[in-house]
């Protein structure tokens, strides 16, 4: 065997090892097999054909109870809230000048309604409803939209069969589904005398910026030559956590405004009601922890377990002190 042959042989052997390594390189020995039980706990998605719907069922009547306890606070008793996304109404409005997008007017599959409630609602405590409760709420919301009758029972068989009003209202748009898609709007790269006349057709009304945003000069770095002075003081966001911050952190502000009732009373209205009441802290602690209704309106407040005892006390003391914002 010549030296060349030995070299060639070694090279061939190395090449073979290289191929073996390349094939082997795909197995990094990382991760673990997922068991059927592990997958079952997380695999919650439901497809339009109903794949993924769990066992269980729920009626419109059951759903009304679940809805009023968990959903009405934000979505309104009849699914018509203006504060949060409306659930009912708007059918026939999508081609109008004021489209109203709701479950009834826009959603195409009732299975998607189940999937979304099951994964993301109720807003403060997602995944807290049982399968039966999710079926029931879905049935109730469909009934609010007059899509199913009052005796409808939602389950794995009936929900995929519901024909939503906008079932055929969606079209995949290939122009934006791949980088090779054909665009629907074409401009040209004209360089000279491209427009005959240019007129301003839209602008913010006088006073709009000041009214909505205050002095926006603090939105810019003062060093920029385009601004005349350092930014106004106090531009930085608020500091340490406080009762006020905790109401943001724990989502209290989703239902309670500072000055204005949303679906629950305004914090400052609560402060006024309990002014001088020595038992107010203990009373409110119980109301918040256990939930309640009837004091400020019929919409119940769900029990709140998020804040620690110390945090809850800080929240209540902040409210009772007049809910002063930083």
């Amino acid at each position, binding site marked *: 065997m010549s030296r060349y042959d030995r070299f060639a042989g070694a090279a061939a052997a190395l090449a073979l090892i290289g191929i073996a390594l390349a094939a082997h390189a795909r197995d990094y020995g990382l991760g673990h097999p997922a068991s059927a039980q592990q997958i079952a706990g997380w695999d919650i998605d439901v497809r339009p054909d109903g794949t993924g719907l769990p066992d269980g069922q729920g009626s419109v009547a059951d759903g009304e109870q679940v809805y009023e306890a968990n959903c009405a606070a934000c979505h309104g008793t009849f699914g018509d809230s203006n504060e949060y996304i409306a659930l009912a109404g708007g059918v026939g409005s999508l081609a109008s000048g004021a489209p109203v997008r709701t479950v009834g007017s826009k959603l195409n599959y009732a299975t998607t309604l189940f999937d979304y409630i099951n994964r993301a609602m109720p807003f403060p405590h997602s995944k807290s409803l049982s399968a039966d409760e999710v079926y029931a709420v879905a049935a109730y919301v469909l009934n609010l939209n007059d899509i199913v009758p009052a005796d409808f029972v939602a389950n794995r068989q009936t929900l995929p069969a519901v024909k939503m009003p906008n079932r055929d209202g969606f079209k995949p748009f290939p122009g934006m589904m791949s980088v090779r898609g054909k665009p629907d709007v074409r401009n040209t790269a004209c360089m000279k005398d491209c427009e005959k006349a240019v007129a301003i057709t839209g602008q913010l009304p006088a006073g709009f910026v000041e009214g909505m945003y205050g*002095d926006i000069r603090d939105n810019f770095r003062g060093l920029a030559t*385009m601004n005349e002075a350092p930014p106004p003081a106090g531009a930085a966001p608020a500091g340490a956590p406080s009762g006020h911050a905790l109401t943001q952190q724990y989502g209290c502000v989703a239902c309670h405004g500072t000055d204005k009732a949303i679906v629950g009373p305004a914090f400052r209205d609560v402060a006024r009601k309990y002014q001088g009441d020595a038992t107010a802290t203990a009373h409110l602690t119980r109301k918040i922890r256990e939930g309640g209704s009837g004091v400020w309106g019929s919409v119940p407040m769900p029990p709140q377990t998020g804040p620690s005892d110390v945090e809850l006390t800080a929240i209540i003391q902040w409210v009772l002190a007049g809910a002063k914002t930083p």
Partner: protein
Amino acid sequence: MDRQDPKRGRLLPAPENFLGAPGQARRRALGNLIAGGAALLGARALHAAGAPADPAHLPPNVPPWSQVLGQPVGANPYGVPASYEKNIIRRLSPGLTTTKHSSVAFTPLQNLFGIITPNGLHFERNHNGRPDINPYEHRLMLHGLVRQPKIYTMEDLLRFPSVSRIHFVECGANTAMEWGNPAVPTVQYTHGMLSCSEWTGVPLSTLLDDAGFDRAKAKYILAEGADAASLTRTIPIEFALDDVLVAYGQNGEMLRPEQGYPVRLLVPGVQGISNVKWLRRLEVGDMPWNTREESLQYSDLMPDGSSRQYTWIQEAKSVITSPSGGQHLLDKGGYYEITGLAWSGRGRIKRVDVSTDGGRNWRTATLQEPVLSKALTRFRIDWTWNGDPALLQSRCIDETGYVQPKMRQLREVRGTHSIYHNNAIQTWAVDAEGKVHNVQV
């Protein structure tokens, strides 16, 4: 003025329901003007009191910071911006959303240089609040049409071969408020659901191979978050096998919580919501999932009442970031560099043109290197403002030859209610005083 004061008026619908916003916002603005005139005067007085330079600190005098020992090394173990930069922050658009737990904070594009967004200023959007996830307890599940369903720990993911690439992320609803009329004053609010980072992670194709995905049947992947929304989006398999990353790194450090710590999907060039944060599950399937975020929301409503579904690609778009809305040019006859950003979900930016006369005539701007695929590209051009009113516009062309459209061209095809994918040419009007305003022509 107290920006958080709820007395400012009724809150507006969530971002997906923007459509009535400009009209409502204006009514509220007028109300606030009547109610808040005195407070405004107060704010102006405060501004005027901003400290001017002290002559004792200027040449020929020697300022005190040149005469005393400074802070020791390591005074800030994790550095923060200079105290003078404290107003360069993400901001929420007043009145845009009912709750801050399903909202958006916008990137201050008007104050940034280059193409990389500082991690603390990357725009933030979440749907059920931002979770704080312990990375040691986080798991990524990969299952469906695969030979071996897998669960990965973060340690597993960090051990796979990694890649780093620079890409923009833009919310599909960026510039949504402008479909009908100008609605917001600054580029932070018109275009600030846009950021760009160097992302590091494992190619999704590596994980799909690791689990042995079914090459014949696999058509789509469902990506799901571990947040309270468990947000889900359908990703086509072509994207997954091309350039999608399972990303844990952002500009050299771990992802910020606001961007999906400890791991997110990064789908280059595709609308922001597909870049699922706090990624917990990937399921390989054979049909799209029609999730709530690709049916009721994040679908583009057309004038005939139909909705375009699965509009993934962010088309080419550009905007001048300086001079831009809210700024004030004080120097008539002075030199101003016009600069801005251009990007395309279809690849590289080929050219950017700039007009100072509302689109009658255009000049080609200089592109700052690097010019990368599906990344922000910085452009610049010289301008001397002669003191007359001017209408500033930028228009980009990407490597496919697509030319960024005019607002009226978009409206002719898509109407004014589609919310998503407004990539129109932006106009900033410079008035005779040098104040810059958001307008449409």
